């Protein structure tokens, strides 16, 4: 996998960044639902 001509070892950094943001969004939505149900 190459992003913008960068080798895999460097491109992977962008994948990790994207996954972090996706997990953060998912976690926030999950916690909101959980807190709503709790209330």
């Amino acid at each position, binding site marked *: 996998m190459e992003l*913008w001509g960068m080798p895999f*070892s460097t491109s992977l*950094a962008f994948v990790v960044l994207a996954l972090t*943001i996706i997990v953060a969004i998912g976690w926030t939505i999950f*916690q*909101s639902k959980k*807190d709503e149900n709790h209330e």
Partner: protein
Amino acid sequence: MNNVWIHVFFLALYFIGLILIGIVTGRKAKTSEEYHLGGRNIGALVSSLSFVAAYFSSVVIIGGGGFGYKYGLSTIWIGVVNVLMGCFLAWLILAKRTRRLTEKLQAISLPDFFQKRYQYPFLKSFSSIVIVLFLIIYNVSILKGLGNTFEVILGIDYTLGLLISGFIVLVYVMFGGYLAVVWTGFIQAILMGAGLIYLFVVAMQKMGGLTQSVARLQAIQTGFVETPGIWGYSGLISYILIVSLGVWGMPQMVARFYSVKDNTAIRRGTLIATIGGSLAIIPYLLGALTRTIYPSIADVDLALPTLVNGIMPVFGISLFFIGVIAAGMSTFSSILIISSTSLIKDLWTDSFHKKLTEKNEIVYSRIINVLIGVVSIIIAWNPPGLVLTLTAFSWAIIASTCLVPYVFGLYWSKASKKGAFLSMVGGFLVALLWMILKPFPVHGFIPGVITSFVLYFVGSWMFPLKEKFIDL
């Protein structure tokens, strides 16, 4: 010359805004807790963006650009792990527990937390001294970044730039306290983000896109685009850990968790800090690609300011310039407020048992802010190293001292005061001696934190708690 006056005009507007915030928030700080923690009532947006501003100071913009220029694209990993560990996981794992425990224990600073959590006053005195001494070194690295930016963009003397930026921060911190720090930090994060995004867009236009500029960098040397590239795994991983995990033990960052309003603000703040922090990769990326336009910059800390000066239109230069100044000032001000809290609240009134009225506490905190600021400016006059190297040194010492007793103190109720004592003193000594003697090419942060971790558990096992005194 005209361009310089445009920058000066925008800078003056910005400075006036900061001082006004200092004066307005200063009127709200009637008690010591309001001066030092803003009354524990700060919302998600302001808490998380001021966290980002304090984290990604001029150190990341100027120093990160410099490291990117020196070592290439592998440094993007520093920015990415900063977002993962330093923003997302830090908020996820530390924020809620810290907020709850510090309120329960009535702790207003990290040293105060150590004393109340472990019931051992020595921990408070020791950690306050380490925090104040080594945060001054961190201040020096921030001021160097500010001075360098003034030097390149305005073409004025480094020392004059240092004095102007240092003076403005001192004024608004002195008047406004913590509330001024978080509110200016919030505005500074927005300016910093806008400056970085604008710079990225213009740089990509001028460089012909990311793919082309990466290809040109690869043609200069393959090591500049590979990971770990010319830096090697040892250096890269050490720095990633210091500036990503190290933040978990940095008092000026952790303070955002005591002062955040409630759990809803923490949940939203986690997401905002993660997304806002993502901009931290831009300085590393552009720092590396600057080499394709300017192949031989002697002082690598000047890489990004040189790029900005060379490719940005005048208003863009002003925006970036103010963004960098904002980034440095937000961190510098956070450090000043933490240092004065440590000296006045933790050392003077609590450790030395000197009684002060609420009013005098605020007055003395203001005086201490000025003194620490002036000492930092004097050392930064002739700084002893690169911006990111100085930062890594001070973070390594503070994190080796505070990180383990803080993080595990939130979760492990069986930790004993002797375990915390051994962890704190052992981590501090190993990190300091390692960086002085340099026995192996690994940064002192790693052996420091490992020692602190091992001694914390060994000490708590050998000298266990006689009775449980706290519900976590």
